[in-house]
């Protein structure tokens, strides 16, 4: 990495609802694990006490790394196997890039955070309210976290996603704005089933 790159702090995060029936069905589907995991990862799964939980840890880690790689200008595409997660879940590798990971889990969810840079990223996983919309809940969570960091009110913050013709979901990564102006925070949003997650990192201030 160049010195300029080392000044950047970037994050990607992903949450998976372990109780989501669709996730459970996917894990059981023939060929699904093979489509997502490398041979080395599958060997780790075969020896695992709880292979389903560990599989979703791998999956979330790959998704978190994917979101970060896009911010670095990479195009990992739809191939999960191009991102290999270490057996200790502490890092992932994409070609010659190594990305630090932090993977955590509770009874019903797993969460992965991928990050680079000097800043200590923050993240939070929250359960959706009964009638809450996931995308709005994720944005609210992120704005609340960012307001604390920036010393402003959440009402002054907004999350923007500009359309993109090259990304798989049709949008660029989210940007956090204060009164319409992009902040210095890099942010990431995720939701799955009953859970939303947000992560942010503040770029190291230049001297």
């Amino acid at each position, binding site marked *: 990495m160049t010195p300029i790159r080392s000044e950047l702090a970037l994050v990607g995060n992903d949450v998976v609802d372990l109780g989501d029936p669709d996730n459970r069905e996917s894990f059981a589907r023939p060929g699904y694990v093979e489509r*997502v995991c490398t041979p080395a990862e599958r060997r780790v799964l075969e020896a695992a006490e709880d292979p389903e939980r560990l599989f979703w840890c791998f999956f979330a880690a790959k998704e978190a790394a994917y979101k970060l790689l896009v911010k670095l200008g990479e195009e990992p595409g739809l191939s999960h196997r191009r991102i290999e997660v270490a057996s200790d879940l502490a890092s992932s590798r994409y070609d010659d890039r190594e990305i630090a990971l932090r993977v955590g889990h509770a009874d019903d969810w797993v969460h992965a955070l991928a990050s680079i840079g000097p800043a200590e990223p923050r993240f939070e996983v929250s359960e959706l309210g009964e009638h809450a919309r996931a995308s709005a809940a994720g944005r609210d969570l992120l704005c609340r976290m960012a307001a604390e960091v920036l010393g402003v009110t959440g009402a002054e913050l907004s999350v923007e996603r500009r359309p993109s013709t090259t990304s798989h979901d049709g949008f660029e990564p989210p940007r956090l704005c204060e009164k319409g102006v992009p902040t210095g925070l890099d942010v990431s949003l995720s939701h799955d089933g009953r859970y939303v997650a947000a992560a942010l990192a503040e770029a190291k201030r230049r001297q």
Partner: protein
Amino acid sequence: MTRGGSVPGAALLPGLPGDVSNLLPALASFHVSSRPVVGRRDLGSPRKSLKVNSARLVDVVLEIEDAFEIEVKDEDADKVKTIGDAVKLILSSQA
């Protein structure tokens, strides 16, 4: 995401080669937006058009492999950014 839904706009297939008309049944078990998945010029990005997350997109790839009896290689999957790309991939795999 709900499985077992129908495909809104399934009858709208202008411009889609007949060989890939099975794409719709292959995707029929996945929740899609109220707009037609196909029949639009842009044939937008898979995740946006299908309103599926990445975990379900893996299911979509497997459905396509089963429906068309093809193998989607990682490097080919990398290139699929739109539904139109998926159609091209299917056609080239069948050629």
